[in-house]
């Protein structure tokens, strides 16, 4: 990590190798380095990068204005970002932010005049089971309470360097509360790759026939991952990131796609509020994730993997680099894997605060050093993904599952779960329950069972799959989590009887407004209009017409929005109207439409002037 330093920016840039400095694909990663070192990206740095990379300055500025954690304006030496998920809010983050601002004498969203500190809100930081949480200089601080806030304020005011702060502030717990067949006994590092190599199955797609005999990609395909691909098919594994696309089809498409290099990207941009399984997987089972990527490289004929990690998980960088290094030492990664002629290596790249980058094609753009705007649908990433080459993009949990499937076989994996949802799934449980954390269940578990296990029997509602997922009330607790019913990222945010569900809706509406990328009309405007109507109801000024309008805008977004964000950014609205109607009804002036004036009475004057009193001169029928 780069510490705040007095090195002038030009000298700092000199520390970056010239070939990297001149590569526009590295733009985002370099901007993150500068942001960390200087707590902003000075204009002179932006100009020099644009010049060295041969790109317009406006493109560099475009990134600074897109990613929440990049800033063209100087931030304090201490930058504090309070996580603002609904769970943080439920456990008092608003009072804590107010206390922090008061103790530090700084306004929210601003930098203190002496340049010491800035305080901001940010979207969910993935610490929902140990919130309220915040990031201090991009490092997570968990379990915030008044005492901890006061101590942090004192440390900042006394200018104590972060490394001298109490270590317990930065403890992030994994809190795995329940393991099932997959994670009860994790796969030993290398077991999945060995199984894949032993299984063999050469398959040389047409595009690879012209490759030189020494080409690593050719080795991959000749050494064969074809049998492992069959196991993936047998397992019926579906993507764990929410969309549930069949992994076997995706891998086969990339293997058989033409064009040069093939890439394996792991999506660890875990931005769906309430979701933190990838954080736990990468903390406790990083080997399984990296091994899954390596197996994928073997199957599809790729030698380069990239793990795209959200900025909120920057603190894991050192740990993950250590795991990668030990895998290289054990010949599980790098050149000549397990003594074969197979090469595959993995690099880490970071996001900079944009929920949209969890979207496959937006993530690809971000890794290419661009604004994370979802691409058009065609061509698909399996044909033209990263650098327009065939690309596998899978979720962290999907790669971990692939390792298990390679080691234990597809049939073993498919034994658990339901017809269309095989295997087990990690569930992220947070909110009003006794035991928040990670729970592994076979797919198909009922919400009720999870609530019982985590100690939340008095819940009035659960948000399944994050804000873009499904909001359910007590009538639906027998529904099950699987692709046949409640799909999503495996997130359960639980709301006890004391909670006002309207606050949940409002939190989600503001989240989506903040995170809409702005590309397409229905989402850019739709998220804003929904948020504005929610504010109108918050003031007690709603009307039944507004409810109708909320439904209409939601329907418009569902059909017309460009990507999954916009298509789902209205679920919380329509579902809360259906399932928690009282929270809306309570905020209306009246449940009947009452116009401001009586039109028929207004006609009375005209009737008097014209001397008419026939039925045509009345709005309502009159007795002759």
């Amino acid at each position, binding site marked *: 990590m780069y510490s705040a330093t007095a090195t002038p920016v030009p000298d700092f840039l000199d520390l970056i190798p010239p070939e990297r400095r001149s590569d526009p694909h590295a733009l985002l990663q370099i901007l993150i380095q500068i942001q960390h070192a200087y707590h902003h990206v000075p204009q002179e740095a932006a100009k020099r990068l644009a010049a060295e990379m041969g790109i317009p300055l406006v493109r560099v500025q475009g990134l600074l204005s897109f990613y929440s954690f990049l800033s063209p304006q100087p931030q304090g030496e201490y930058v504090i970002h309070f996580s603002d998920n609904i769970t943080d809010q439920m456990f008092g983050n608003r009072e804590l932010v107010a206390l922090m601002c008061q103790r530090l004498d700084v306004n929210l969203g601003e930098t203190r005049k002496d340049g010491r500190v800035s305080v901001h809100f940010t979207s969910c930081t993935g610490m929902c089971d140990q919130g309220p949480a915040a990031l201090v200089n991009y490092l997570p601080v968990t379990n915030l309470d008044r005492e901890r806030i006061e101590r942090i304020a004192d440390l900042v005011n006394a200018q104590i360097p972060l490394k001298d702060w109490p270590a317990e502030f930065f403890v992030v717990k994994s809190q795995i509360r329940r393991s099932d067949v997959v994670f009860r006994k994790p796969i030993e590092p290398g077991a999945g790759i060995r199984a894949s190599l032993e299984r063999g199955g050469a398959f040389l797609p047409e595009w690879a026939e012209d490759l030189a005999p020494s080409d690593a990609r050719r080795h991959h395909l000749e050494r064969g991952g074809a049998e492992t691909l069959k196991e993936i098919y047998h397992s019926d594994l579906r993507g764990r990131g929410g969309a549930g696309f069949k992994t076997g089809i995706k891998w086969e498409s990339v293997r058989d796609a033409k064009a040069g290099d093939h890439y394996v990207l792991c999506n660890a941009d875990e931005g769906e509020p309430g979701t933190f399984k990838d954080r736990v997987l990468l903390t406790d089972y990083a080997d399984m994730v990296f091994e899954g990527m390596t197996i994928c490289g073997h199957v599809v004929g790729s030698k380069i993997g990239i793990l795209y990690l959200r900025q909120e998980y920057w603190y894991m960088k050192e740990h993950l680099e250590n795991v990668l290094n030990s895998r290289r030492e054990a010949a599980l990664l790098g050149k000549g894997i397990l003594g074969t002629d197979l090469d595959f290596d993995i690099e880490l790249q970071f996001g900079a605060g944009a929920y949209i980058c969890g979207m496959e094609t937006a993530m690809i753009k971000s890794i290419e050093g661009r604004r994370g705007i979802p691409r058009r649908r065609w061509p698909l990433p399996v044909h033209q993904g990263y650098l327009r080459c065939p690309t596998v993009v899978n979720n962290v949990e999907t790669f971990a599952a692939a390792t298990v499937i390679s080691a234990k076989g597809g049939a073993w994996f498919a034994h658990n779960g339901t017809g269309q949802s095989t295997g087990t799934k990690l569930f992220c449980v947070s909110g009003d329950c006794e035991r928040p954390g990670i729970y592994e269940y076979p797919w198909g578990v009922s919400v009720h069972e999870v609530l019982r296990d985590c100690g939340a029997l008095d819940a009035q509602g659960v948000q399944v799959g994050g804000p873009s997922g499904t909001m359910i009330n007590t009538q639906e607790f027998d529904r099950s989590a699987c692709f046949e019913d409640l799909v999503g990222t495996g997130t359960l945010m639980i709301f006890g009887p004391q909670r006002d569900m309207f606050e949940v809706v409002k939190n989600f509406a503001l989240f989506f407004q903040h995170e*809409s990328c702005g590309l397409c009309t*229905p989402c*850019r405007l739709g998220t804003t209009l929904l948020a504005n109507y929610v504010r109108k109801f918050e003031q007690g000024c709603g009307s039944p017409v507004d409810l109708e309008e909320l439904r209409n805008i939601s329907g418009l977004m569902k059909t*017309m929005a460009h990507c999954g964000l916009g298509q789902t950014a209205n679920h919380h609205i329509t579902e809360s109207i259906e399932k928690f109607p009282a929270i809306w009804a309570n905020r209306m002036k009246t449940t009947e439409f009452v116009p401001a004036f009586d039109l028929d009475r207004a006609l009375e004057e005209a009737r008097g002037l014209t001397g008419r009193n026939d039925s045509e001169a009345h709005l309502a029928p009159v007795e002759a």
Partner: protein
Amino acid sequence: MTSSFFLDGKEIPFKEGQTVLQAAMGAGQYIPHLCWRPELEPHSSCRLCIVIISGKPFSSCTQPAMEGQKVECNTPKLNAMRRAVTQLLFVEGNHYCPSCEESGNCKLQATAYHVGMQDSHFPHQFPIRERDSSHPRVNLDRDRCIRCETCVRASRELDGKNVFAIHGRGIKSRLAVNSPTSLLKDSGISPDDMAVKLCPTGALTVKRVGFEWPIGQRIYDKESLATIELREYANQEAVHG
């Protein structure tokens, strides 16, 4: 062998590699659009050209035409949604048609007539946006920008200049100018740039020619948007194939 698909039941021939929108336009079937231009890479952001294929919505400007496909386009439900999307564009910016020099030449306005928009329906956002009149010949009025990125693409793809980009995110995103001062006067823009010519609204205009033609004798006063667009597309095809 020519292939064909069905647009609202009508058979549309297409060539390999054509999108649904290209094939439809080529066959004389207009599908509303604002961000699409035949000479530019499709952008799929205005969402007016959405069609339904096998029950699912797709932007026809990016969707490849496929043999035998049944495409729903001119349906009451989709037309109502296109109208709503157009209304959203009007309430997002500050569009004062009666006093705008582009009135009658404006594709946004013409599209509003085409989709049958009679009011703006949604609450106006009245954003505060910066105007850039710094350039002697070209005016940038962000109040009228609909974020279609036609100028961004045209400047990059046709003018080879990269004068424009989008900054910010979501509802706060806006058109930015590539120049040391962020002003048009210090950019490489010229009034002859396709970026200026292709702007579908009055966001980018050439100065001192706004009222060359009186209202009533302007582009969309004489012919309908669909007629003009279809003719332009046919001419384009005739030149470039």
